[in-house]
């Protein structure tokens, strides 16, 4: 019985419901509550890593918490193994930074914002930590609903439309997931992931394939792979930048986690191979990746461009994971981490930069680099990482991904990955060019704000500091990339052996 696991979910959940109460008493305490809660979350994560690190490296990490003391057959279990530990840590640290960033960034309706974002944090931790498949569905739905409310946070027409689209896609995906969960329940009589995993082979093949098809459709909708990517760019671009960073940087990775959990741990990868879906999926994911990169070219809106590039990268990760070789899984997980870091950095810096422009369009980036040189360099570093320039983390994962594809005989896929990064050079470079373009007479005028889209920041310092912290994390993780090798290999061997 490990109470720490429960705390990871409980702290943000309690905070989310505490914030409206605090608002009634005194608004000024709110910031204190938020920061202390975030710190508590990070500390619990740190405590778990430090206390379990040896067990983790030995590959034997398996903490459980039985809610209400019910056995795993009847009750709900929370479980923490090596895969979920990594994702849980990523969530708590990145969300901590994003929430601290929002303290400086969000200037209106703060009570609602923090309640929602803490609910998302609780739901994400729940998704990663739960050992019950129905509970997984509940948490995913919770993420969808709360994030939908955040997407519509600006309450303008575009935002509302994007949210409508997002939530219709999300609910349909969730319903397919629910049907699949019930099919499993009818056949096995249990909802516990461990029990399902050990008994899944008993189900007859027709039912298995139906379940797989439903899960696959659902998870592809949630991840935004090609035929279902339509909701993604708009939803990720209309919301405040801190929410975009959360959605595009962190949330997509949670669905990747669910994907890995379902198709490796529960069904076993052999089944996917047996029904001949793995090659089909690889081609679909790679096609989606290229489509994402190509569509990013026409996006003049900077945030839309970043969202399209997310489609490209997530497609790449899914494609490489499905190869199921050690290099492939390592590359995929590494790219998950590096994409999380880089996309979050990019969205956070862009969030700052577009406060100093008239809009999100490329043309509005005219001369931004001279007005905010520091943040623009951070933005440029993020871009360099994205296209894969060493020593930033994006390069190493690109290397391993290409290596994995070519080792498995998909030479064309390796070339496509490189092609994607070359295309992305073209669409990113436009913004850098525009940022540094300034007419001579404009250089002489003192830098000043052009216009403000949202209400102005009132704590600009926090925004810039968090952006710099994120950027230094990116650079640091690139320089010390070998530190990731051992922990990730533990996960990889757990996935392949299991």
């Amino acid at each position, binding site marked *: 019985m490990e109470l720490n696991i429960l705390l990871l979910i409980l702290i943000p959940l309690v905070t989310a419901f505490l914030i409206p109460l605090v608002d009634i008493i005194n608004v000024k305490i709110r910031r204190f509550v938020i920061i202390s809660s975030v710190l508590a979350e990070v500390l619990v994560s740190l405590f778990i890593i430090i206390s379990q690190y040896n067990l983790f490296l030995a590959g034997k990490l398996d903490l459980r918490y039985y809610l209400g003391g019910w056995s795993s057959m009847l009750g709900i279990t929370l479980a923490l193994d090596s895969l979920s530990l990594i994702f849980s840590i990523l969530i708590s640290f990145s969300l901590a930074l994003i929430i601290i960033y929002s303290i400086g960034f969000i200037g209106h309706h703060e009570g609602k914002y923090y309640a929602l974002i803490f609910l998302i944090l609780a739901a994400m931790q729940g998704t990663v930590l739960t050992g019950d498949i129905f509970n997984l569905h509940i948490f995913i739905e919770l993420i969808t609903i709360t994030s939908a409310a955040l997407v519509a946070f600006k309450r303008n027409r575009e935002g509302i439309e994007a949210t409508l689209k997002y*939530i219709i896609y999300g609910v349909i995906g969730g319903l397919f997931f629910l049907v699949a969960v019930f099919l499993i329940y009818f056949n096995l009589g249990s909802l516990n992931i461990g029990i399902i995993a050990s008994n899944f082979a008993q189900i007859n093949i027709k039912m298995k394939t139906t379940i797989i098809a439903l899960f696959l459709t659902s998870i592809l909708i949630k991840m935004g792979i090609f035929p279902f990517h339509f909701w993604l760019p708009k939803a990720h671009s209309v919301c405040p930048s801190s929410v975009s960073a959360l959605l595009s940087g962190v949330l997509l990775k949670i669905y990747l986690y669910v994907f890995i959990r379902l198709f490796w741990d529960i069904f076993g990868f052999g089944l996917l191979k047996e029904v001949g879906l793995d090659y089909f999926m690889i081609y679909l994911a790679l096609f989606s990746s290229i489509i994402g990169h190509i569509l990013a070219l026409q996006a003049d809106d900077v945030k839309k461009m970043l969202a399209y590039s997310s489609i490209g990268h997530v497609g790449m990760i899914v494609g490489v994971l499905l190869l199921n070789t050690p290099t492939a899984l390592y590359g995929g997980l590494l790219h998950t981490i590096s994409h999380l870091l880089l996309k979050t950095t990019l969205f956070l810096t862009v969030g700052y930069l577009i406060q100093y422009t008239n809009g999100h369009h490329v043309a509005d980036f005219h001369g931004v680099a001279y007005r905010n040189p520091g943040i623009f360099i951070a933005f440029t570093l993020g871009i360099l990482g994205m296209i894969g320039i060493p020593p930033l983390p994006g390069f190493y994962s690109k290397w391993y991904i290409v290596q994995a594809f070519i080792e498995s005989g998909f030479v064309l896929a390796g070339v496509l990955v490189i092609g994607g990064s070359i295309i992305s050079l073209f669409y990113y470079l436009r913004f850098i060019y525009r940022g540094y373009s300034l007419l001579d007479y404009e250089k002489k005028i003192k830098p000043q704000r052009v216009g403000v889209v949202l209400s102005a920041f009132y704590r600009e310092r926090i925004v810039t500091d968090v952006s710099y912290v994120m950027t230094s994390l990116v650079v640091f993780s690139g320089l010390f990339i070998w530190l990731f090798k051992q922990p990730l290999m533990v996960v990889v061997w757990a996935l392949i052996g299991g």
Partner: protein
Amino acid sequence: MFYHFIFILLFMLGLYTILVQDNLIKLVIGLTIMEAAIFLWVIATNYRGGIIPILQPGVIEADVVNPIPHALILTGIVIGASTTALLLTLVIEINKFATVITLDVLKGLRD
């Protein structure tokens, strides 16, 4: 088998509503029909008569009603209600901007 058939019929009906209807409210209704289809299906197929499910000494598990599907469906209904509420809120918001809540007017949903 009958229940499965009804489930598929209702589910497809909901899907059809979403794919064909023009009105946003009807879209929401379609989603609700899909949800309801699943709930009805689960309850109907899992129903078996029995006594109240309280595990006491002397009560055999085979005698009691299976409580798990009902618990699940209750949770599911809560989620369904909240999504429906959120969707309807969005429709109200869109009505403020657009006055007409049909898809052929809302070009913004395309991209």
